[in-house]
């Protein structure tokens, strides 16, 4: 299992899409390709933008299919992060 601490990468307000993209390319995809489960740990993250979450997971949903969500867990998300993540996952499924 690969745990990725979002606060350590993006700080308390996760908005930098370049960082999100790097997390996806350098940490999430290699782990998923190794058939590992990925845990995105949002502990200490106060808020995330839709752009950040989109850059983090949308391409994975598109390329691996929606079933990949069975191998990705979102940990310690506050209400804001939960809702932003929910919006992104929902519109991605509508578009797939």
């Amino acid at each position, binding site marked *: 299992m690969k745990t990725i601490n979002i606060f350590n990468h993006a*700080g308390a*307000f996760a*908005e*930098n*899409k*370049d960082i999100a*993209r790097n997390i996806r390319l350098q940490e999430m995809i290699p782990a998923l390709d190794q058939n590992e489960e990925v845990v995105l740990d949002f502990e200490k993250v*106060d*808020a995330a*933008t*839709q*752009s950040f979450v*989109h*850059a983090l997971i*949308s*391409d994975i949903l*598109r390329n691996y299919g929606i079933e990949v969500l069975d191998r990705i867990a979102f940990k310690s998300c*506050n*209400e*804001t992060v939960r*809702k*932003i993540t*929910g*919006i*992104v996952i*929902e*519109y*991605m499924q*509508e*578009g*797939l």
Partner: protein
Amino acid sequence: MRVHLPNSAFLGNLDSFLRGFDPDNPETLEITANLRWISVHPFVLSMIAALGQRVKPKNIHAEKFEAKSRHYLVRMGLFKYLGLQTEDISIIEHESAGRFIPLTRIQTSEELTNCVTEMIPLLHLEPEQAKTIAYVVSELVRNTLEHAATPDGAILCAQYYKKSNSIRIGIADNGIGIKSAINRSYNSRTDLEAIQLALTPGITGTTRKEGGTELNAGAGLFFIKSIASVNRDFFVVYSGNGFYKLLKNPKLKKLRLHANPFDDRHSKSSDLPRWQGTVVGIDIALDQTDKFSGLLDAIGSTYTTAVRERKKARYKKPRFI
């Protein structure tokens, strides 16, 4: 180019200021101002600073500012930004001094992250208010960095207004404008039509695919318009000849978010003096700032419905013969 700083130019009465902007002779910039009082929204300051970027400093001419309130322009960094002398203007500190972000140029993703981090203490925001303001600034400036195609980046400034207990934000750029950005994937005929598309959830200039690309979903401006709508605030977009203003929703009226910005209470123009690039302004009343996570529910359902309806409109129909 010529621009006149009027007695008052805020998002509610911005139209006449914009109609007075003269974009001819782009190699020079002449600035005049009301003689008695100048009270303008950060939208106006960002716009003038962006104009100054297009012109060599020696070709910027400003008449001597006589208005008592001219020190505000100094404090916001306008003269410094334009390279104009201001020895004759003394700065009078206001009670709210400190609750503003002077004209700031943001050219990179890292600069934006730093700006968003530093602005929260500068504006003395409560945590829930900070989320909304940081969200708005981050998404708007990032839009410029990604879509405006200009190395000059975005010019931002913001101000707290004690009387209305609100933060007012202006962001301007000299980029390619919304029409050119949207028409990479769409075919809008006018600047106003391009603004309409840019405000529609799920529409991005980077692709026509639902769900967007790995980095863009076409959600940013829709989120910002929704935040303004839920908080019953003004939100303005000016690009090319096009101008869209989300009007304040009456307090007693039940709120509904719309995917089509023209279904919101708004005003629009398609014949304003041409602005090369994009200027965006927003007011956020702090005592009306809804709980951020609460407004996300409404945004999410409107967004998903819009994508679903657009997808359904493309369904093949049975051919009955």
